[in-house]
């Protein structure tokens, strides 16, 4: 086996031999299960839950395999392996998702054991990317680098990965269970739309702890997570989360799939009663067995020690000269580059949203290039974001221009992070067996309409999110402009919502009016943008703030006036 060398540079968690043996055994177990299915020893009814537990779905055209990228952090070696698998077993590309994972769309069942074996060679797998278990824990893609970071979310996400992987009590929950952790002042992990959202903070003594939000989620019944406890000390982190999961496991509905998520339990039980149940369970669990030992935390923290950053001045003459000489680069820096906590370094977002492109798709050549660039400029590590982009988190400001030129030559240099072109779109009816309408063509048409980078910056921060069905994989409920595809007697229609917000001021968007056709949808989005530009108080007022100030009426009037 060609495992990632243990002890290689920190920033990526490295498996120990127990992890490796476990994953290798699971691959061999699945290989035999596939053989038994192909020989007829297992029926499809028997096999389906088994393949789902290994991340394998059946979609419209083929099997879809979802690979876990724990908290969205991976190494260049791992990305290169994902590229190699895409080339060998799929159709030369992969799709990065809102769960900070990667999906292949054209997988053969008979190839899947070999793929899982290859993934295991670089300490990767597809476990718990499906099924009614704790899914991939997500966190801030700027983790470990952001200037506003208070606590390193990777450490606690990794603790949860170890604690929940194949935990017998949490393998058959009432429904899937999604956890997000934010350790910074800004919430870049959308914590309040998760089953459990954790906001890590330090108290007045400088000790790390967490606020727990429970019962957020999108889909058929969208809810914003409710604060269950303002402060849980680090040592009680596992105990408190286990208490929540136990209450959910005990009371969560298993008789109705649409009412099985924890958000429905919290809603139906009421926050007060739910909290009481959790607190009682927590009181029973709290103690030596569940105490999170600071030494364990420290040992995991060592895996995420900062890379060997140089001592640099924060100002870069090379960067300023390049910006002055190349306006397109200057625009990219202004939009896609964020402050790093170390002077002289920056965080660069690699957009997977070229104008007219498919959000989240990357060709294998592009993946190889990003892996090379991560090694050259960012200590060999990178991140997947929940808005379907990639991030190089530790780039010297002096290197940004070289980096961008290479990205731009590969259609990865779009300057649209957080702007109207940075659209989230689920795979929709082009791939997904659950979808009612296509998402991708609409995303392509909107991003093409707003391709001009100057126009995008004029419009400013504006998130468009598109889902092809009520399951809301495209997070449309929390889009400043959300779009939901619906089927009306065989024709695709699109319902527009406005006012959604995935940040700490989380809000679910409101439906603006009757659904429109695909042809009408792009014009409708442009009309909404025009109304915003005409009504904003000044250039600094964001779309969401203008909307909150002026209300829906001017937007409705503009779109539906002719009806």
């Amino acid at each position, binding site marked *: 086996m060609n495992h990632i060398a243990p002890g290689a540079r920190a920033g990526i968690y490295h498996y120990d031999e127990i992890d490796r043996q476990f994953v290798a055994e699971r691959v061999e177990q699945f290989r035999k299960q596939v053989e038994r299915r192909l020989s007829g020893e297992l029926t499809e009814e028997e096999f389906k839950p088994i393949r789902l537990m290994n991340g394998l779905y059946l979609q419209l055209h083929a099997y879809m395999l979802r690979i876990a990228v724990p908290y969205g952090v991976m190494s260049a070696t791992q990305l290169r392996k994902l590229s190699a698998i895409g080339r060998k077993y799929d159709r030369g590309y992969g799709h990065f998702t809102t769960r900070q994972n990667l999906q292949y769309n054209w997988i053969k069942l008979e190839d899947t054991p070999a793929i899982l074996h290859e993934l295991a060679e670089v300490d990767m797998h597809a476990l718990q990317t499906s099924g009614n278990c704790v899914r991939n824990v997500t966190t801030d893609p700027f983790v470990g680098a952001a200037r506003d970071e208070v606590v390193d979310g990777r450490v606690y996400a990794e603790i949860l990965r170890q604690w929940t992987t194949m935990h017998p009590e949490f393998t058959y929950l009432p429904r899937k269970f999604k956890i997000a952790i934010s350790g910074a002042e800004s919430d870049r992990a959308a914590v309040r739309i998760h089953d459990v959202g954790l906001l890590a903070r330090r108290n007045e003594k400088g000790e790390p702890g967490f606020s727990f939000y429970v019962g957020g989620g999108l889909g058929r019944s969208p809810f914003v997570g409710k604060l269950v406890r303002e402060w849980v000390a680090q040592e009680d982190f596992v105990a408190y989360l286990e208490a929540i999961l136990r209450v959910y496991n005990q009371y969560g509905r298993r008789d109705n799939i649409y009412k099985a998520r924890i958000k429905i339990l919290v809603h139906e039980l009421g926050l007060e009663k739910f909290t009481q149940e959790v607190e009682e369970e927590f009181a029973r669990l709290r103690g030596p067995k569940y105490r999170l030992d600071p030494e364990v935390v420290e040992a995991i923290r060592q895996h995420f020690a900062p890379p060997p950053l140089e001592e640099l001045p924060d100002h870069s003459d090379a960067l300023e000269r390049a910006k002055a000489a190349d306006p397109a680069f200057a625009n990219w820096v202004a939009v896609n580059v964020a402050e790093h906590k170390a002077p002289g370094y920056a965080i660069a977002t690699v957009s997977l949203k070229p104008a007219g492109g498919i959000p989240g798709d990357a060709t294998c050549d592009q993946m190889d290039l990003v892996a090379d660039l991560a090694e050259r400029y960012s200590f060999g590590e990178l991140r997947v974001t929940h808005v379907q982009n990639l991030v190089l988190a530790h780039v010297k400001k002096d290197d940004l221009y070289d980096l961008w030129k290479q990205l731009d030559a590969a259609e990865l240099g779009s300057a649209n992070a957080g702007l109207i072109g940075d659209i989230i779109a689920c795979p929709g009816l*082009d791939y997904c067996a659950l979808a009612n309408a296509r998402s991708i063509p609409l995303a392509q048409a909107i991003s093409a309409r707003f391709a001009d980078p100057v126009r995008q910056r004029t419009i400013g921060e504006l998130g468009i999110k598109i889902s092809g069905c009520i399951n809301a994989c495209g997070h449309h409920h929390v889009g400043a402009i959300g779009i939901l595809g619906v089927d009306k007697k065989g024709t695709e229609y699109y319902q527009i919502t406005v006012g959604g917000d995935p940040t700490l001021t989380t809000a679910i968007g409101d439906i603006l009016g009757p659904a429109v056709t695909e042809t009408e949808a792009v014009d409708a989005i442009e009309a909404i943008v025009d109304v915003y530009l005409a009504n904003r108080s000044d250039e600094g007022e964001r779309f969401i703030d203008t909307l909150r100030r002026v209300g829906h009426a001017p937007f409705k009037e503009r779109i539906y006036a002719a009806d």
Partner: protein
Amino acid sequence: MKAITANRLRDGEVVFLGKDGVWVESFAAAALFPRAEADGVLAAAKEKAEREQFGVDIYAFEVVEQDGVPVPATMRERIRTAGPTVRLDLGKQAA
């Protein structure tokens, strides 16, 4: 009219029930059944496909005539017979 479709177990390829109960990859070669007959054909096809470990997710779908040519009635089935509308280089349309 209706056609009967499945995904091939081994590789997930979209297949259609053709003449004489043989599964084919192209919708153009799919057999069409009057609605009244489709349920019976579907039941037999399901049983046979499971017995032979050939196909999964077997169902019948509506077919209409367009310009004298049979086409799937819904966008979903049109996409399955051709491939993603956003990548014309993928799926059966690429062949």
